[in-house]
Every structure is written in structure tokens, then in C-alpha cells.
């Protein structure tokens, strides 16, 4: 177990056309001044759209990339200049990167042989890891003879045997089909709780992030937008990016004067379903209703709370109010559910009452 910390980390790549002349302009900042620290034994998820720098950040922590400036610390020691093998980290790649010419056993034992662990102990540890991940019966096979889920577990076992200080997982579920992904997610979480190793997990999938993370760090364009527990990130997004990136459908944002008013679709309900003393009324010109596994998604234009804006309301299956398409309907949001963002910066601001 260990604490991983990055301090003012910057990673620049030379721009595409200027690759031959490294001092050309057009350099891309993949990681743009990130400060972040895990807690002991924490499951930290780096979440962001593709190209936001999350994988680069992970690879820099692993030592596969050298930062342009800034430091990586593991357990308080600066490891910035050290090669991956000196960092005591283990990584699971998106492709799993199993050695195709080696058997499952040889794959798992590889890090131990590299660490010059005595043969008997190696064998014992492989058996332990295989038992933990329930792949003992696969040890003699080659990776190509395994299913996607089995490969993922072999990759985890290979990361696990060395008992690293930190696990780094780079979208390990993205190669699995939807059904397997749900059970693998559950397994990943239980597995981490069992071994208690600090884990940094990269994903672009907010469902994975919400389900797995003790805390989520939301990244965009090489910067951290918000770090916090899933409920915090969901309920109190730090800016409009986080508000719209997390949640499906995303938070509704309605411009009003110099602020943006935000509210989650599930909080926009027919006025009759919101207690009257704290209801902020919104008229909704309904133009479409979708039925999605019980819930109703109501699309329309919100009037009377700010500029007319298209919004979505998510009505739970338990609510029986009729919402006819093509009519204006009285909706409301509880006052405490409203969030406010500054129009110019997009950052959260204090609640602003209507003048």
C-alpha cells in the first residue's frame, strides 16, 4: 500500500507537423499542470473524454513517459527519473498485453523472475494469485486459448503476484462485452478490497467510474476539473464540464442573466410531485417522450426559469402523471436541487435568487 502523488505535472508532445524540429510551435500539452494525490489503499478513478490526458497521466506515473516538468512521488519518494521497474508499480493494459508465446503460468511468473524471486516462492505466489482470481485451471494454456474475461484475470494476476505498491489500470474493461463488463467491474472492486492496494483506474465510462471509485478525478484537456467521491462529483459538479460529462442524460443548463442554472433531469418533475414550499416552477413545452426501461425521458423547452432552453426531465416509473406531447406542462425543481455556474468561467457559484 502506498500513496501516489503528482505535483504540477506537465507533459508536452511535439506537434504533429513539427516532429522533426522539436522546438517548433504547435506542441500539444497532454497533461497541463496536474496536482493529485491518492490516499492509502484508495481506489482513485481518472475519468474524462478521450484525449483528455488521463492515460498519459497514468503512463507518466508508471514511468513509461517522462514528464516535461513536475514530479511523481510514490510513498513520499520522488520517482520521476526512475524507470518503471524501480517504481514497484503494476499495470494492466487496455489490451492486457499478455505475452502470446508464453503460457498463462509463464505470463504470471514473469515479473517474479524479473525480480529474481527464488523458484519455490515464485511457484507459491503464482498459485496464490491464480487461486485468488480463480484461474488455477488455466495455467497451462496460451493466451489465445482464453476468453476476454479470462485474459483480463490473467493480466490482473500478473499485476498482482509481485505485490506492488500501486495498481495502474488502463481501461481494463473496455475490451469486454456489456454483460461481462458488469460482472468484471464487480470482481475488480471486490478484488481490490481484498488486497487493499492503492489503485489508479483510468476510464472514459462514467458508469465504471461511479461504480468503482472511492474518489473520481474528472479530467478535461489535460487539467483536473474536480476530485471527489462519486456522489459529490454527481451532486455538486465543480463546473459546467463536469455537470454535463457526468450523468446520463447530463445536467440541464439554463442560461439566466450572468449565471447558468443547472438541475439534474431526475429533479425536474411535474409540479404535483414536488413539495410546494420549495418548488421552483418551470413551464415545459413538451415535444417528445421516450420510454427507457421504466423511466420516462421527457424532452422539451424550459420556459420561465431563464432563456428558453431545451432540457430533459427523467420521470421515474413510480410517477403516473400524464405528460401529453405538444402541450405546455407545469414542472418544478426543488430549490435545494438547483446549482449555479458563472457564465464566463463555467465555475460553480453561490446560489443566486431571482431578482
Amino acid at each position, binding site marked *: 500500500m502506498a500513496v501516489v502523488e503528482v505535483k504540477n505535472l506537465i507533459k508536452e508532445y511535439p506537434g504533429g507537423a513539427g516532429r522533426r524540429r522539436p522546438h517548433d510551435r504547435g506542441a500539444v500539452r497532454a497533461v497541463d499542470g496536474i496536482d493529485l494525490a491518492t490516499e492509502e489503499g484508495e481506489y482513485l478513478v481518472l475519468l474524462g473524454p478521450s484525449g483528455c490526458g488521463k492515460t498519459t497521466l497514468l503512463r507518466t506515473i508508471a*514511468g513509461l513517459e517522462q514528464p516535461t516538468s513536475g514530479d511523481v512521488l510514490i510513498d513520499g519518494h520522488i520517482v520521476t527519473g526512475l524507470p518503471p521497474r524501480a517504481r514497484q508499480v503494476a*499495470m494492466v493494459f487496455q489490451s492486457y498485453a499478455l505475452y502470446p508465446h508464453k503460457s498463462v503460468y509463464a505470463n504470471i511468473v514473469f515479473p517474479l523472475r524479473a*525480480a529474481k524471486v527464488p523458484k519455490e516462492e515464485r511457484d507459491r505466489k503464482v498459485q496464490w494469485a491464480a487461486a485468488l482470481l480463480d484461474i488455477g485451471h488455466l495455467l497451462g494454456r496460451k493466451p489465445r486459448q482464453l476468453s476476454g474475461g479470462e485474459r483480463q484475470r490473467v493480466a490482473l494476476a500478473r499485476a498482482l503476484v509481485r505485490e506492488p505498491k500501486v495498481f495502474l489500470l488502463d481501461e481494463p474493461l473496455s475490451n469486454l462485452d456489456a454483460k461481462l463488463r458488469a460482472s468484471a467491474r464487480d470482481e475488480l472492486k471486490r478484488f481490490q478490497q481484498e488486497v487493499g492496494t492503492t489503485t489508479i483506474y483510468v476510464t472514459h465510462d462514467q458508469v465504471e467510474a461511479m461504480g468503482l471509485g472511492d474518489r473520481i478525478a474528472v479530467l478535461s484537456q489535460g487539467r483536473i476539473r474536480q476530485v471527489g467521491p462519486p456522489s459529490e462529483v454527481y451532486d455538486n459538479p465543480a463546473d459546467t464540464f463536469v455537470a454535463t460529462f457526468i450523468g446520463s442524460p447530463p445536467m440541464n443548463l439554463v442560461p439566466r442573466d450572468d449565471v447558468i442554472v443547472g438541475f439534474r433531469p431526475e429533479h425536474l418533475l411535474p409540479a404535483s410531485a414536488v413539495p410546494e414550499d420549495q418548488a421552483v416552477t418551470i413551464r415545459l413545452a413538451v415535444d417528445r417522450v421516450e420510454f427507457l426501461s421504466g423511466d420516462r425521458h421527457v424532452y422539451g423547452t424550459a420556459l420561465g426559469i431563464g432563456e428558453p432552453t431545451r432540457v430533459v426531465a427523467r420521470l421515474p416509473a413510480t410517477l403516473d402523471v400524464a405528460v401529453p406531447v405538444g402541450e405546455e406542462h407545469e414542472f418544478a425543481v426543488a430549490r435545494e436541487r438547483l446549482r449555479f455556474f458563472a457564465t464566463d468561467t463555467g465555475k460553480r457559484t453561490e446560489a443566486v435568487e431571482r431578482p
Partner: protein
Amino acid sequence: MKVRLADRPGALAWIFLMPSVVYIIALVAVPFFLAIGFALSDVTAGDPSFDWVGLRNFERAFDDPVFWRSLGNTFIFTIVSMVLVVLLGKVLANILVAQFKGKWIVRFLVLLPWTTPVALSSISWLWLLDSIFSPIDWVMRQIGMLGSQDALIKPDRNMYWLGEPGLAMASVIAVHVWRLTPLAAVIMVAGLVAIPRDLDEAARVDGAGYWRRMFEVTIPMVLPVAAVAALFGAIFTFTDMAVVDVLTNGGPNNATQVLTSWAFFRGIDGGDVGQGAAIALFLFPLLLAAAIAILQAVKRMEVR
């Protein structure tokens, strides 16, 4: 609507195949069976009439110590060249895939030997290895390895590269290696770049150093491709007589005689077509084995 020729795949297939069928029959099959026929006859350059002599040409070839010497030399050349070609090809391939300044000029220079016609390059080597005017000897004299009483190697002014049996063989092998290494390197570059980058990175995170990554990940992954490179090279070396013919003409005293050159000397220069054909036929089973091995290696790659 009439069915046109373009609508009949069977007929089209034959039309398109015809040129290669004609080519194979005229330039491969006919000469091959002709060679078998000659090997069993007493045809000579002076007397082209065909008389059946059974296996007498083979018996005469086996009785000749030069034949056995040529056979042994062929194997030595091929095996030593291939070991060196694969080793150097792997090293060169690593250089070719590395990122550094001036990469294109290095690539250009590396590939140059392969693009030079073999007769031309062999003649250049003949000059480089000349018994009196060799520039290599001149360099060695300048740095004190030759030509004085306290010289490092010997006091003579020249090495006589192509005059001493051992040196002549080493020279022929060296030229072969020089010629074939670029091809092997290019084939292995194809193998190297096909290895997913993840694998090398996984090995780095798993704590493996350079040599462990090289021997446990990179080399096993390029092995099928390296095998193809080696087998291609082996066939090229095995069937090549240009280098031997230009450099040493089989000499000194048959020290660098190989099957191809010996068959040529007996059959064409010596005019004994029957015996030349008999000797040349010895290449066939060996090349057949190499071809089968190549196809096997390719099949293994497809499975992976």
C-alpha cells in the same frame, strides 16, 4: 443479353493463369526434367547425342573428392552465412526501428548492398581483396598490422585474402553476409514493428531489463519472421555461384568450391553436361526441404 467472357470465372481463371503456367513449364519444369535426363546420359558439349548410361554420372561424381569437398563447402557457406546474417540482421533491424537523427541516411546506406547487382558488387570486392593492391591491406599496413617486422598480424605486405584457403572461405562468407544482411534486416523490421508496443511496455512495468525484454519478449515474437529471413537467405546462398565465381573461381585448390560452381565447371566449362547435371541435381532435395520449412514457418505465423 449474352453471357460474356468476363462473366465466366472458369475461363477467366485459365486466361489469367496461362502466362505463369507457360513460364513455369518453359523455364522451370522443362529444364528440371532435362537436367534429370542429362544426368542419366553421356551428353557432352562435343557430342550432344543422347545415350543412356544409368547412374554412371552419379558414381563418377561420388568418386571425385572435389564433389564431396564442394558439398561440404556449400553447407559451411550456407550455415555460417545464415547464422551471421540473422544475428547482424537482428542488430541492424533494431537500429532501423530506433528513432534518431539522420535515420533516413542510415536506412539508405544499410539497404545499399542489397540494391547493387551481385556481379558488380562481387567485382568491387575482388578489387578490395586483391592480393597486391588491396585497399584493406593498405589500411592494415597504415595502422601497423601488416608489412613490418613488429607488425601485429604478420610481417608480409599482404594478407592474400583470396589466396589462402581459410581466408578465401572467410572472404566469400563475408561478401555473402554483406549482401544478404540488409534483406534479412528489412524482413525482421517488418517482424519487429508488428509486435504490439504494449508488450514491451508491459515487460518494462513488470520489471524486466533490456536483455530480458530482448530475449523473452522481442526475440520469441520475431522468431517466425527471422526463420523466414534465414530460409530465404539460405536459398540465396545455396544457389548462388556469382560470388564464388567472381572472387575465387572455386580456388585456391578447390577450397571455396561449392555445388553450383562445381556443376558449372564440370558441365559448362568442362563440357561434361551429364555430370554437371548430376551434380546440380543435388541442390534439389536440399532446396525442397528449405521450401517446405519456409511454408511451415509461414503457416505457424498465420496461426498466431
